[in-house]
């Protein structure tokens, strides 16, 4: 993924008002690293930036999708065994009861089983995402039904 901070910066208000606590260029970098959200910039939600906001959302969307982590979950193959829920190190660090094999009650986890199938709740928490960028494949390795694929 070659999303440059400059591409993002171009669409920001470029006022360096620091209402978000950063300069616009620093904010652009942090957006890509997922350390801040678009909502942290109040100016962007003014009418005159509506078009820019839409473009930014589109630009940043791949980060939210499977493109950046290369993680895909086919819910039609899943049996809800919860191996991914318990084996995922990110899940355990967010919700310690998961370490004991319990279901994930935190809203912040990567995986959770809902209505009998695993769901990706917060893909951006996956360790494959920046800033960690770890080539972790635990969920894929231990999936009984090959519902999880990392490519």
């Amino acid at each position: 993924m070659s999303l440059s901070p400059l591409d993002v910066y171009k669409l920001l208000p470029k006022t360096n008002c620091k209402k978000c606590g950063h300069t616009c260029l620093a904010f652009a970098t942090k957006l890509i690293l997922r350390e801040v959200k678009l909502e942290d910039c109040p100016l962007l939600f003014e009418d005159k930036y509506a078009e820019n906001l839409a473009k930014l959302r589109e630009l940043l969307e791949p980060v939210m999708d499977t493109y950046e982590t290369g993680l895909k979950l086919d819910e039609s193959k899943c049996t809800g065994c919860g191996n991914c829920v318990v084996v995922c190190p990110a899940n355990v660090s967010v919700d310690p009861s998961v370490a004991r094999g319990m279901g994930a009650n935190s809203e912040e986890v990567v995986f959770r089983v809902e209505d009998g199938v695993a769901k990706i709740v917060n893909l951006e928490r996956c360790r494959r995402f920046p800033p960690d960028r770890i080539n972790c494949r635990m969920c894929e390795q231990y999936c009984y039904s090959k519902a999880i694929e990392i490519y």
Partner: protein
Amino acid sequence: MRVEAVCTGCSLLCDDIVVEVKGGRVKKVLHACAIGAKRIESALEAERALKPLAGGRIVSLDEAVKQAAEMLREARRPLLYGWCNSVNEAVRLGLELARKVNGFFDGPMSVCHGYSIWYARMKGIRPPKLDEVLDRADHVVYWGCNPAESHHRHASRFAVFPRGEKTPEGVESRSVTVVDVRPTRTMRIANHRLIIPPGRDAALAKLIAGELSGSRGKPSEAGVAEEEFYSFIESLKRSTYVVVFYGLGLYSAGERSGVEGLYELIKVLESSGVKAAAIPMSGHYNMVGAVEEALSATGYPYAIDFSGGQPSFSQEQTAVKLLSKGEFDVVLVIGSDPLASMPRQAVSGLKKSKVIAVDYQLSLTARAAELVLPAAVGGVESGGTATRMDGERLELKPFLEPAGCSRADEEILKMVAKEL
């Protein structure tokens, strides 16, 4: 509203389930596997038995109860069959009812894990609790069972993935071995995969025991690949706490030598200084409870004949065998679908008898029954205690009102007993 629940989808009785309920309907089920979620959803399905039926005609509950009592009272030789999908309290009432009508008490346990549960109790073996497996077992063996298809959360909730006291790295702190007659999905999480021909379980158990006690045999005797076998043995020798979960694969063609061989191996492991245990992977959510209740009430595990007044038992005289001979004239079926699951001969015996079905769904058996008494879904609409595969008793936490005219198994059995 969010409520906690205990899942009755299988004998793991997962007690961390969260259900979102709104206006008496289930909105979302958290943490239950596909089997558990389906069980909860089934409470709301179209196939639900909601009204008492007599000869296909809707009748009042009182009328149905009266008729059930009359059928049982007049029966020449009644069978009371099922119990593995009922709570312990209902099983107790079932045993009393069987005594009262001089009936025959049995269920799927007599052709499933009843023998394993009974065998261990006879030998005075108490299996470790699953929480102890979680905390201490560093080698888990799945033998003749395939939890990836039958007990989906077994590995993630208890046996393999959780981080325990002596297993701080979860799956990394344990070895996992799968023994089966073919490659299975469970093998995807295994370090050692031992594939053997059907019926060689006892031979394999003996071979492993031999390796541990210094009398070497040949892997070919058990039909297992040499390389896999020795890498497993090496790993076994390094283990400190081995727990074997075994399935019906150990009973090939009704043989019991597999189960007995396995418990011999457990003894050898223990005497070589390794802590070891075996736990049968019973399927129905309360099979262990049904067998334990029967043992404590009569001293017998299943297939209990009250026809002579006092209970008697023979391992060879199970409901399946006696049905095949057309022995029963009235059969009360509770929480089971023998018409769909029994061998052909037993089914034809069943078809010749008058059936009273107590079930939450209009199963094949219920559809063919003379009388249907609609039951509440255990764990969803009705409570009580159930016994997990390791013998731990759990209190169910129902969260819906029984649908239609359905009642808890216990309530139905009490009404019938009162009418008698």
